[in-house]
């Protein structure tokens, strides 16, 4: 088989689905959320588990997912770099398909993040770098660790806590009509600021929801996609990137700009061969309200210090020039602990014209993921048109 590029539209996502239910799903275990989403995504593609010869997932053992579905893979990827793992899996799967190591790759996510059914026990490791140099100080939970650099970011730009609240308000607008979203009430900046205190400068609504849920994707070559019943809904991978930095937030190269966002997104744009002006829609992984601000600037959509105003002025809202987090994002829609799969799923729906709040006439979507607590990043550029 001739080698092809994993980028440039040679690989297609032909199946995509979230689990049948998300939110609070105590009657489904973690592995069942994987399987439920996987079967729906394969059905969406017009394929069955017997067609799958490549499989990828994060945190959960690939073997466990494959065994559950009766898959005997010849290619596996268990890359676990936090919640953006699934973006990296798309990139890795594309490379596998392009080089003939797999023909049909299934990527699954499942997490009982809210009900904690069938999930592994969480335990700290007091001998690790984090166990010695972060956790003893109380920097343990995402809201007490991921949030740490935010004040430095805001101060460097002359921005404030209000800019965090503006992100919440802008994204909530997308969630209001979406019945699968967890938080659907309209809010004002003052209401967000007056909400329950979690970790200054973060109030409750600036932090993601915690949910149960899963999602899955099916990838094949663009050539194979043409023979599938899902061919008219295929979405193509234009470009991708990935990067990492440190597992200690204190050791970020720069507290006010995340190098991994810059490097992963630069590679995605370079491999896609498109510019920012070509992007019609974006998903910015928002575990907390400061992340879309970092991402908007670090991925080059706006200049230093312009992210707050971009959200406040409505450019990311319905009708805006760059619709962002159009199902409500991790702070309003759903966040199982690893949100990356949900960001990709919304890009798929938008590019297929099947979103709850559909952005009209879009061709390209940019997905920026983050992994762990400022540990890693991955980026995808997707299109509903093959270049």
């Amino acid at each position, binding site marked *: 088989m001739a080698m092809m590029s994993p980028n440039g539209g040679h690989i297609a996502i032909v199946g995509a689905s979230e689990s049948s239910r998300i939110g609070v799903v105590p009657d489904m275990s973690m592995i069942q959320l994987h399987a439920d989403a996987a079967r729906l995504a394969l059905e969406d593609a017009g394929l069955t588990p017997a067609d799958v010869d490549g499989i990828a997932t994060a945190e959960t053992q690939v073997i466990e997912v494959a065994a559950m579905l009766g898959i005997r893979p010849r290619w596996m990827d268990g890359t676990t770099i936090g919640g953006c793992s699934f973006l990296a899996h798309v990139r890795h799967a594309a490379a596998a398909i392009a080089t003939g190591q797999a023909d049909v790759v299934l990527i699954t996510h499942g997490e009982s993040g809210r009900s904690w059914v069938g999930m592994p026990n969480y335990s*700290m490791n*007091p*001998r690790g*770098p984090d*166990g*010695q*140099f*972060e*956790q*003893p*100080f*109380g*920097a*343990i*939970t995402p*809201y*007490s*660790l991921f*949030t*740490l*650099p*935010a*004040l*430095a970011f805001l*101060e460097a730009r002359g921005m404030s806590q209000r800019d965090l609240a503006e992100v919440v308000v802008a994204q909530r607008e997308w969630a209001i009509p979406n019945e699968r979203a967890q938080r659907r009430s309209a809010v004002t900046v003052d209401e967000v600021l007056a909400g329950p*205190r*979690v*970790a*200054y*400068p*973060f109030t409750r609504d600036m932090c993601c929801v915690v949910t149960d849920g899963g999602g899955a994707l099916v990838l094949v070559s663009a050539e194979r996609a043409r023979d599938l019943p899902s061919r008219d809904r295929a979405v193509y991978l234009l470009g991708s990137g990935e990067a990492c930095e440190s597992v*200690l*937030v*204190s*050791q970020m190269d720069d*507290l006010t700009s995340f190098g991994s966002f810059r490097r992963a997104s630069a590679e995605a744009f370079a491999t896609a061969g498109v510019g920012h002006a070509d992007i019609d829609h974006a998903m910015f992984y928002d575990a907390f309200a400061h992340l879309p601000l970092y991402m908007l600037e670090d991925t080059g959509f706006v200049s230093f210090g312009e992210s707050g105003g971009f959200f406040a002025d409505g450019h990311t809202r319905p009708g805006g020039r760059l619709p962002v987090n159009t199902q409500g994002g991790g702070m309003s829609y759903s966040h199982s602990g690893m949100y990356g799969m949900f960001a990709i799923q919304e890009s798929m729906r938008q590019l297929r014209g099947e979103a709850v709040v559909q952005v009209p006439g879009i061709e390209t979507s940019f997905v920026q993921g983050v992994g762990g607590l400022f540990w890693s990043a991955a980026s995808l550029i997707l299109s509903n048109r093959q270049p």
Partner: protein
Amino acid sequence: MSIGPIPEPTPETLAFWQGTAAGELRIQRCRACENFYFYPRPFCPKCNSDEVEWQPVSGKAQLASYIINYRPYEDFQTEEPQIIALVTLAEGPRMCTNIVGVAPDPDQLPLGLALQVAFEPRGEQFLPVFKPARS
């Protein structure tokens, strides 16, 4: 006995924790590129040299960023807000720590605030925490 997670030194980090127990903040410096670095590793992360040494440092630092955690982790068995901070040592490296000796009030915690290290017992270890420096 203080409550909260207790760090367990490894061979690479033992000198750091021996230092805090002796009332000293010791970090590593590379003899080749003269870079101070943290967290402890037996080689320089900047230039990869093995020629590294432990040095007691001043304990002076500046407040780089922080949060006030109103929901402390259950292990701490407290509901008192914790100031969890990133501080930049005078010698350059950044550390995660707690700010003590000041109210958990943003008005008392301007970024850039001058700090001085102190040591608090936690199990068999002593944690480096920081308090506002006396002017």
